[in-house]
C-alpha cells in the first residue's frame, strides 16, 4: 500500500478550452491535514472533483488511496468522503433520513445504531426529524460533515466546509477535523480563512489553476522572501493611503490597531519608512503574516504586478 494518500502528477482540466487547472502535482502522505488555498476561481473545487472521480482530468495521472484516478474511480469513491462546497444533501429529507440514506448506500452495519451515534455526536438528536432544508447554514455544514464521514472514509475532501459558519462552530468544526485525523483519516480542506490554514500540517496554494507554492506555514512565509514593518501609534491609519503609493511597498493594510507594510525589497521599504520617521509613530520589523504572503502571492500571480523593487 502506498504511503501517499494522494499522488498525482500533471493534473489538468480544461473547460471549453479554458484551463481551470493546469499541471498540478500533489504528493500527500496519509494521515495528514492539508489546506488548499487560493483566490476565487483558482481551481480548488475543480482539483478536488478530479481527485474523487467527479471530473475526468484532461491530462495528468496518478492515484488516490493507491487506486488509479482514471480506472478505479468506483473504488476511490467508496473510501472517500467528499463534502461539496454548496450544501448538497436532500432538503426534503429529514436529518435522520439523509443519514439513513448514506448508511444504506454504503451498506453500514447496524445502521440504526450508527445513525443514532452520528446524531448524538453531531448534537442533532433533538432535531433529527426536521427537514435538512430547514436547518441554518452552520447546522447544514455540520450535517454534511457528519454524513460524509459516517462510512469512515480513508480520505476526506472538504471543500470550504466552514464558509458562513460562526467562529464558535468553526472551532468545533476544526476540533472534529483533528479528531478524524487522529483516527487516521487523511484530510484535504479548502478554505479562504488564514486561521484555518494555520491549523493545517501543510498548505497548497493555487492561483489561476497553477500550484504556486506549498509547504508548512513557517516554510511558506520564509520562502516568500517577504518583509514586513509595523507602525503603531495614535492615528496611524491615515498613513495607509500614503504608504500604499510608495515605491517598493507592495501592500499596506491596517489591522490589529497597527499599520502593516510589506514588500520584497528591504532598501525600498526602509527608505519609505525613513520618509515618515519624523511623524512620531513607532516602527519595527515583524515576521510577515500568512495573509500578507498570500496577498503578495495573489498579486504576483495576477500578472504585471510581478514587477517590484
Amino acid at each position, binding site marked *: 500500500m502506498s504511503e501517499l494518500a494522494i499522488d498525482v502528477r500533471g493534473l489538468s482540466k480544461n473547460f471549453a478550452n479554458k484551463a481551470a487547472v493546469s499541471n498540478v502535482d500533489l504528493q500527500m502522505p496519509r494521515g495528514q491535514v492539508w489546506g488548499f488555498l487560493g483566490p476565487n476561481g483558482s481551481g480548488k473545487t475543480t482539483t478536488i472533483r478530479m481527485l474523487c*472521480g467527479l471530473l475526468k482530468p484532461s491530462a495528468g495521472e496518478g492515484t488516490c488511496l493507491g487506486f488509479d484516478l482514471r480506472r478505479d474511480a468506483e473504488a476511490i469513491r467508496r473510501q472517500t468522503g467528499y463534502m461539496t462546497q454548496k450544501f*448538497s444533501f436532500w432538503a426534503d*429529507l429529514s436529518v435522520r433520513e439523509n443519514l439513513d440514506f*448514506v448508511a444504506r*448506500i454504503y451498506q453500514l452495519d447496524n445502521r440504526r445504531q450508527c445513525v443514532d451515534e452520528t446524531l448524538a455526536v453531531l448534537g442533532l438528536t433533538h432535531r433529527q426529524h426536521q427537514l435538512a432544508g430547514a436547518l441554518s447554514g452552520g447546522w447544514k455544514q455540520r450535517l454534511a460533515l457528519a454524513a460524509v464521514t459516517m462510512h469512515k472514509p480513508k480520505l476526506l475532501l472538504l471543500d470550504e466546509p466552514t464558509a458562513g459558519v460562526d467562529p464558535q462552530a468553526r472551532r468545533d468544526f476544526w476540533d472534529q477535523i483533528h479528531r478524524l485525523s487522529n483516527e487516521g483519516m487523511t484530510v484535504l480542506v479548502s478554505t479562504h480563512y488564514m486561521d484555518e490554514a494555520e491549523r493545517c500540517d501543510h498548505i497548497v496554494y493555487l492561483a489561476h489553476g497553477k500550484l504556486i507554492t506549498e509547504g508548512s506555514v513557517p516554510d511558506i512565509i520564509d520562502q516568500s522572501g517577504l518583509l514586513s514593518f509595523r507602525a503603531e501609534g495614535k492615528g496611524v491609519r491615515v498613513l495607509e493611503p500614503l504608504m500604499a503609493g510608495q515605491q517598493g511597498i507592495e501592500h499596506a493594510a491596517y489591522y490589529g490597531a497597527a499599520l502593516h507594510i510589506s514588500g520584497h525589497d528591504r532598501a525600498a521599504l526602509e527608505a519609505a519608512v525613513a520618509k515618515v520617521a519624523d511623524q512620531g509613530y513607532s516602527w519595527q520589523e515583524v515576521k510577515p503574516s500568512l495573509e500578507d504572503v498570500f496577498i503578495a502571492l495573489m498579486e504576483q500571480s495576477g500578472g504585471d504586478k510581478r514587477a517590484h523593487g
Partner: protein
Amino acid sequence: MMRLGHRLARINAVFIKELIQMRRDRLTFAVMLAIPILELVLFGYAINTDPKHLPTAVHAEEYTPVVRSILSGLENSEYFDVSTSHSDPRASDYLLASGKVVFVVEIPAGFTRQLIRGERPQLLVSADATDPVAASNALGRLSTIVNQALAKDLTGPLAHLRAGKGAVDLVVHPRYNPEGITQYNIVPGLLGVILTMTLVMITGMAMTRETERGTMENLLAMPGSPFEVMIGKILPYVGVGLVQTVVVLVVAHWLFAVPFIGSIALLVLSVAIFILANLALGFTFSTIAQSQIQSMQLTFFFFLPSILLSGFMFPFRGMPHWAQMIGEVLPLTHFLRVVRGIMLKGAGLQESVYDLAAILAFMLVVSTVAMLRYKRTLD
C-alpha cells in the same frame, strides 16, 4: 452473489429515499391520483361520444301508417328526439343551421306508394356535420332502426320487401366511425393514456431534479451504478402506476359499467410491463434534459404522437401508412390492443404476446439509451 447483495442494498437505499421524497411532495402525489379520475369523468361524461336524445326535425309530406312506424321507431331508439314536425322545406335548413336540431328527416310525398311497389323510395336524413363524432353513432344505427320499425308493417304479401337492401333507400351523410368509439373502447385506452402521461412526466424529473437542486454532485460522489440508481428511482412509481390502474378500473366499472371478461392476472402483467416501459422512458428523458422544463417538453413531445397515433384518438386502421408505422413504435399502441383485447374480448396470453414483446423491446432500447446517457461525472 455478494455483488448482487450489494446491488440490491444500494437499489433499496435509492428506493427508500425516492419513496420518502415522493410522499413528501404532496401536490405531485395528489395530482397523480387526481388525473385518472378527472380524465375518466371528462372523457366518460363530458366528452360523451355516444350521445343520445339528439334533437331531430321531421319534414314529412305524408303521414301514412308506414311513416308513423318509422318515426316512432326513431323515437324509441333513444338516439332521435323528434322535436318538431313541419311541412315547410325551408324550415329544415334553418333548424339545422341554427343548431336547433342535429338531424332533419325528410319523407317525400308518395313515399308509401313507392315503398309498397318495391321502388325503394329515398329517406333523406341530413345531419349536422360540424361534430361528426356526435352524430355518427345515431347515424350508424339508423338503417337498423328503420328496418326494424318497418318489419312490423311489412308482413304478408309485403314481406319480400324486407329482404335485400331493405325497403327504403337511406340517404345519409356518410360520416362513419368504423371502430364505433364508445366508453367501452375509451376507458381501457384512457388507462394507457393516463399512465403514459403521468409516469413519463414524473420520472422525467428524476435526474434533472437532482441536478437542479445541486444534490447530483453528492449522489455521484457516492457508490451506486447508473443501473442501481435507475431501478431505485423508478420502482416507487410502479406502485403509483398500479394504484392509478386500480382507480381507473374501479371507476370505469362503477361509472360506466365497462365489462371485464379477460384474465386479471394477464392484465396486471401487461400493466406492469407498460408501466416499466414508461418509467424507463421518463428516466431516459431525465438523462437527456438539462432542466425540469426541458424534460416536460420532451414528455409532451412524446405524449402527442402517443395520443394521436396509437389508435386512442383515431381508429388505427384508418390512419395513413406512415402514421401507422410511427404508431407501431409507441408502447401505447400495443398496450391499447392488449388491454382492449383482455377487457373486452377476453384475449389470452397467446393473443397478447406479440404486443407485450413489442413493449418490452421498447423498454430495452430506451433503458440502454439511459445507461449510455447517464453521466457518472460532472463533465
